[in-house]
């Protein structure tokens, strides 16, 4: 192994409801949704109309700014509905699935022999280009950009995150082909970060052609942004791309078989889930087809720190491989903060006594546990941010909309997800991710 990154700061949130390592069923949904809102920076142009026939891999949307970037249907079927929101904003394209699945044939190839242009072309056409995320700002990758490197974090440390060695079991060959294909896109190589704790039995440790880094530590050690900041921090003007292992495997499979196959194991997790386990399905599958229906429960696509509320009538997002179910915490606790013990609640602070039960897992809900206040205690942010930045100064610069300071304090290196734990630990209950996200939006607007 070439490099070791040992991170001391961070926090693993002890929440109940980890998915058991079993696939309980495979769901080929009757309807799938292709949601342009899954891709940051995408201005969608519709390529189909209601009633059109599509195959798995047929284009449904294109990017208006980069018409080469196509977004394709994961299934073969008929376009059922175009869902629009306020001001006719395109929210989703619903495709009704055929009983027999047909796929566009992009032509099986050997990853080694592909050229840069061929890889690019294949990704753009197949709809997998959208899986590449560009930093700074975490937007859809620009095909004309020259990234200094591509980074892949092979594992996630987020709460209840799926275990990639389980979800991608049997796909080692595809992952290898995916990495090989990705190396063609950059001169700086593909950096693959693996979890040192599971290194011995991880298939990722055996990958060839990637620059491998062993990472250890609590969340957010598995965040690719944190890893980049320790491997090769992003300077002003530089661009890097990141991609999740799920899509590395999909790219490898596309190259080797010529077919787009987005079937993935999705972890159904959370304290409100009856039997947390994995379901195999496609992105865009209706949540209803994947989980039971509960009242007073929040359906989160993704993890509890960074996920999006998709609701029980919603659809699984393109990037999501977890649906987390937690109760809405609208109940009001009498004298909560004044009770000496609140053993049913977790706190990373020693003002409560959860440190006495370090192994305990908690039945968490969405209650804020307090009211919003001005920043008072700020060391807690540094304790959960294993990066060479001062979180509170970056946050304040974002609040002030001060571009110059945001630059100096490291806005290029972070995405909201990298500071997600600040949301959790803040006694003043500020929405740090929202502040950072608005700061990034301002940067995009001002630097364009």
């Amino acid at each position, binding site marked *: 192994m070439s490099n070791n990154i040992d991170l001391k700061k961070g926090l693993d949130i002890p929440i109940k409801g980890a998915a058991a390592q079993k696939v309980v069923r495979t769901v080929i949904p009757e309807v799938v949704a292709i949601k342009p809102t899954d891709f940051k920076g995408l201005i969608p142009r519709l390529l189909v109309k209601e009633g059109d026939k599509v195959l798995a891999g047929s284009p449904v949307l294109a990017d208006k700014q980069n018409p080469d970037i196509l977004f394709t249907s994961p299934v073969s079927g008929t376009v059922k509905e175009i869902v629009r929101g306020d001001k006719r904003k395109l929210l989703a394209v619903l495709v009704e699935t055929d009983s027999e699945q047909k796929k566009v044939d992009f032509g099986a190839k050997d990853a080694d022999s592909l050229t840069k242009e061929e890889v690019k072309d294949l990704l753009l056409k197949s709809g997998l280009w959208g899986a590449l995320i560009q930093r700074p700002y975490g937007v859809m990758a620009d095909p004309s950009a020259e990234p200094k490197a591509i980074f892949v974090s092979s594992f996630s440390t987020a709460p209840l995150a799926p275990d990639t060695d389980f979800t991608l079991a049997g796909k080692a060959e595809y992952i290898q082909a995916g990495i090989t294909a990705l190396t063609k896109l950059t001169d700086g190589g593909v950096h693959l970060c693996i979890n040192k704790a599971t290194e011995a039995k991880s298939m990722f440790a055996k990958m060839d052609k990637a620059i491998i880094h062993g990472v250890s530590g609590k969340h957010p050690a598995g965040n690719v942004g944190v890893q980049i900041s320790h491997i090769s921090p992003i300077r002003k003007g530089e661009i890097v791309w990141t991609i999740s292992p799920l899509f590395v495997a999909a790219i490898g499979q596309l190259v080797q078989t010529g077919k787009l196959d987005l079937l993935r194991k999705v972890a159904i997790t959370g304290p409100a889930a009856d039997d947390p386990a994995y379901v195999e399905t496609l992105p865009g599958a209706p949540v209803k087809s994947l989980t039971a229906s509960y009242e007073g429960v929040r359906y989160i696509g993704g993890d*509890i720190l960074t996920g999006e509320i998709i609701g029980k009538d919603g659809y699984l997002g393109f990037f999501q491989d977890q649906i987390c179910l937690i109760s809405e915490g609208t109940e*009001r606790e*009498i004298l909560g903060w004044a009770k000496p013990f609140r053993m049913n609640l977790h*706190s990373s602070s020693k003002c409560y006594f959860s440190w006495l039960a370090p192994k305990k897992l908690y039945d968490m809900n969405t209650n*804020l546990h307090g009211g919003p*206040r001005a920043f*008072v205690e700020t060391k807690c942010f540094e304790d959960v941010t294993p990066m*060479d930045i001062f979180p509170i100064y970056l946050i304040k610069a974002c609040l002030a909309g001060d571009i110059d300071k945001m630059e100096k304090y490291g806005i290029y290196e972070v995405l*909201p997800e990298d500071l997600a734990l600040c949301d959790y630990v803040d*006694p003043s209950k500020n929405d740090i991710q929202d502040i950072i996200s608005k700061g990034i939006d301002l940067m995009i607007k001002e630097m364009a």
Partner: protein
Amino acid sequence: MAEEKKAGLFEKGGKLYWLHSTIDAFDTFLRVPGTVTAKGAHVRDAIDLKRVMIMVVVALVPAALFGMYNVGYQTALATGASWGFWKMFFYGLLKVLPLYIVSYLVGLGIEFASSQIRGEEVNEGYLVTGFLIPLIVPVDVPLWMLALAVAFAVIFGKEVFGGTGMNIWNPALLTRAFLFFSYPSSMSGSDVWVHIPKDMAPTDAFTGATPLAIAGDGGVGALDAAGYSFMDLFWGLIPGSVGETSVIAILIGAVIILWSGVASWKIMLSSIAGALLVGWFGQLAGSGIPAYYHLVMGGFLFGTVFMATDPVTSAQTETGKWIYGFLVGALAVVVRLWNPGYAEGMMLAILLMNTFAPLIDHCVVSASISRRAKKMKTA
């Protein structure tokens, strides 16, 4: 049904909307709000500011209880009365309680009113400030002066900046500073530290001077002559501000706020280091006071543990905390040793460093940025 009606009354458009901050404050005091997360992380830590503040109050309780006992003890000692433990304690309790009532009535009153004006929720910062103030004043301070000082500190020290979290100076220390400079005769000298009831006369041996003042005049020799050993100062049965005298009670509090992570050990440690270093120089220069005496005399330890570590007014960067704490300790002893006007330097040292804390942070952050810029260039 009744509850719904009541809620309507205080909601926007309701008749008593102008009281909503106050009602919210009591409501959320009794019951955790039912608010759920709307943006960002979907689950949140159980910690909130109320809990942070209450931890500090809990940490202050030993010093407050000891202070009450000591008030009775000093009165008994000065007048030669032969009181038992409980009599001394209740005597002190009755003396200190009015200070608490004034502190909280005036302070919270202003806090509620300004929250109402800003239309915000009432912040819990004053829970701590209000508990601190009676502990850092002499027991005999007239209540009207205290009320005036509290009003000044809360309005001009905190609310004009936007309330808790926005203030530059520690409001409790501002209260003390206001008293100190406006009414020096009630805040210094030998007559204010021990309460002598009108119907009792002090014994002939009674001087009323604090050990700090004695040591300032004649060094450790004078302390010995007055009958104060190092251990007396450590236990704290000596004249002084209500809560500052007992090192042992303050240390219990220090353990609580350090363990719970509310206060920074870096600030406490560096403040002590700063005091010892300057105290040692002072000793070399002939101050006649061993450096470690500075730690147990006057308000040094109380200030180091409870005031210098205020997360709002102290330095916020970790490196900055070392610098800030060190300068607090060093400056306090500098004032004690080389300023004939003031016996105690802790209050001024902390207020001065409160002023410079943002500058310290600015330097630390700038240094870090240029270091990063260099690293980025060579990377």
